[in-house]
């Protein structure tokens, strides 16, 4: 017999005190969705089950108590910090879920400039940590577009990646240790060491678990020296995105590590670079950073590689530098975008995938052509590659459509999910991954078995082992 909503709230109040249990109906309704169904919040039309309460967790011990209660009573838990998820990971799949919010656990525990690592509680905004380490001439190297609003716990939980990943890596390359609480209240701490070969790397049970296995309470990340004065920006226009992929591959294969390495297709380039690029131009751009000699050598190496492609036309680096200085999205841009959507019913969505160098252009071309042909009311269909590796790269599909003849709450079913479906199908067909960095959430969970293939056994076993009563973020990663 499941607990009633009132009984759940009473129990939560006993655990953390009534001040830290939010039951305001409007806040609960707004918290029933994340950015995957953002139109529901923008237009105030909600269809998802309403959570029973939001609990502000203030310590690891309280998180453990809360998880113990949830596990014992079969109450679904949605772990949350900055609430910037885009793939439905924070959506309440079942009624009377509890959202455990770690944003009040907001202390930077230590900054160790000698051992080049910093420890932060889960609710520390990345921007806060970054600002503090910058005062010491250091950087986390992590800079997702959500840097001003995302928190450390959520970034690790969703296997985040930043705009400088080609040099610094994704969050999985930065996390050296962490603390997490598992269902039943088991607190685990993975110590901070440079590397170890003592069996499987258990950090990866936690990193990217999206709240479906545990609640992350603290993370320790690497630090790097920060040399913004050495940044070198490079940019070119070109007509064929395939050439852009070829250049990115050559840069990676030759061992260069620019922090930013991107190629935009004409549609996406039109959003950012129409003041210098023609309507049918792709834009290829790089940023080299690091110690002066490293940055210089990186820029010279890239210059030489692009020179072998005479179809690329170099542009004034100030264009790229100006673009770079306006990369992140804070609350003011998000609010402005919501208002634009409210007035125009024109919605911007993104879906990111990855694949090897042989497949990426085919996936891009096939998915783009199908979306334009099969989905109505598309106003822009484009994308860019922004994270490259020795064996392949990502494609960040960026698209806009007008919501026509349906209510805002139907936008996901009429447009967004069918587009995601096309991108997933074309990616899986060619052996790529359907998620490069936003996480599976609930949006892409329907494709999880195809994504994992025979390795789904490992994922399913992890879920069964760590969350035997299936109380952790039901429907996320593994569909309910």
């Amino acid at each position, binding site marked *: 017999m499941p607990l009633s909503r009132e009984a759940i709230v009473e129990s939560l109040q006993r655990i953390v005190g009534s001040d*830290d249990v939010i039951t305001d109906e409007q806040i609960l309704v707004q918290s029933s969705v994340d950015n995957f169904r953002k139109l529901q919040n923008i237009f105030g039309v909600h269809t998802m089950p309403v959570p029973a309460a939001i609990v502000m967790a203030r310590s690891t011990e309280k998180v453990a108590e809360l998880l113990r209660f949830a596990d014992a009573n079969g109450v679904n838990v949605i772990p949350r910090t900055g609430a910037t998820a885009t793939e439905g990971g924070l959506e309440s799949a079942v009624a009377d879920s509890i959202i455990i919010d770690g944003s009040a656990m907001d202390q930077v525990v230590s900054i160790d400039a000698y051992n080049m690592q910093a420890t932060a509680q889960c609710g520390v905004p990345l921007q806060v940590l970054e600002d503090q380490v910058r005062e010491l001439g250091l950087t986390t190297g992590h800079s997702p577009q959500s840097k001003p609003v995302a928190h450390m716990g959520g970034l690790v939980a969703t296997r985040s990646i930043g705009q400088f990943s080609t040099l610094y890596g994704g969050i999985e390359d930065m996390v050296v240790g962490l603390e997490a609480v598992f269902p039943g209240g088991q607190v685990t701490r993975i110590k901070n060491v440079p590397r170890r070969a003592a069996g499987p790397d258990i950090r990866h049970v936690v990193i990217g678990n999206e709240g479906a296995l545990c609640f992350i309470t603290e993370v320790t990340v690497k630090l790097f020296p920060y040399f913004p004065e050495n940044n070198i920006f490079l940019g070119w226009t070109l007509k064929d995105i395939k050439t852009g992929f070829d250049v990115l591959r050559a840069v990676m294969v030759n061992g260069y590590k620019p922090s930013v390495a991107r190629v935009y297709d004409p549609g996406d380039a039109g959003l950012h670079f*129409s*003041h210098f690029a023609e309507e049918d131009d792709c834009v290829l751009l790089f940023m080299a950073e690091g110690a002066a000699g490293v940055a210089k050598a990186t820029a010279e190496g890239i210059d030489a590689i692009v020179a072998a492609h005479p179809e690329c036309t170099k542009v004034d680096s100030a*264009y790229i530098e100006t673009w770079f200085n*306006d990369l992140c999205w804070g609350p003011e841009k998000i609010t402005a975008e919501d208002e634009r959507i409210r*007035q125009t019913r024109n919605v911007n969505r993104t879906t990111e995938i990855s694949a090897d160098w042989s497949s990426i252009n085919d996936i891009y071309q096939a998915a783009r052509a199908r979306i334009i042909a099969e989905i109505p*009311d598309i*106003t822009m269909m484009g994308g860019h590659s922004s994270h490259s590796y020795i064996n392949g790269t990502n494609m960040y599909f960026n698209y806009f459509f*007008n919501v026509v003849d349906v209510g805002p709450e139907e936008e996901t079913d009429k447009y967004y999910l069918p587009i995601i479906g096309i991108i997933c199908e074309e990616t899986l067909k060619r052996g790529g991954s359907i998620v490069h960095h936003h996480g599976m959430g609930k949006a892409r969970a329907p494709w999880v078995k195809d994504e994992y293939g025979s390795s789904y056994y490992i994922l399913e076993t992890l879920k069964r082992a760590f969350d035997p009563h299936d109380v952790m973020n039901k429907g996320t990663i593994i569909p309910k």
Partner: protein
Amino acid sequence: MRILVSFKVTPDYEALREADWAAGTAGVVETRYVPRILSCFDESALELALRLSEGRTGRGATTELAALSIGGRGAEPYLNTLLALGYARAARVPSDTDLDFAPAVIASIVAGYVQQVDHSDVLLLGYRSSPGDSGTIPFLVAETLGWPCLTQVTEVEPLADGRLRVACMVDEGLLRVTLRLPCVLAVGNAVVSHLRVPTLTDRLARRNARIDDVAAADLGVDLAAELLRGACVLSGLEAIDRRRGSVIIGGESPREKARTLYDSQLKSVMEKL
């Protein structure tokens, strides 16, 4: 009814860093590296014109929309977008000259275009645009044309008899006026502040529509001579200090923080009310 919207494409000044706000050697702020955007009041005017046109549809009245912009090639993507949205004509008066502080020149061109090319009944435009912000262009155009001019327009709707009902913000509130054509409507803080977006299908349907380039000289405006008359030279820039003080309120619980906020910041204000 022939409606003309005159609009400006401006650099996105929000994308300029504070350090970039400097009078360069050419005596201007260097803005070429930042993206271009529609001047915000002009964007409202462009969308209001579309709604005005739709409001007349089905009443047996024909409405033709046209758009005009003056400047470099930055306007072209916007003109193509307007064609895809149903504007019948999109025209550009090419100019590489900095006309930011030459409102009389702009007004001469717009008035010349209305009289000699478009023969419009209604001219819609933003009541001002950055960086000049003179707010004089609508009045100068109206004076040249001999048309009435309403400013701070927020809404426009068609009436069955061909007149327009226009709402304008005034100091005392919202003024609603019914007026005959022709007229100049200078759009202010309209509720409608975003231009709709055409689909790829719309763009495909209008791919053969061409932007008309109209030389200023053909409208009787000698750009060089006009500029000499009202030359404006940037002599310096001074930033407005918008920093505000702040206090971070501590406390063990939201209740305690709220109490501190009330006691330290609000109580004295409330007591004076």
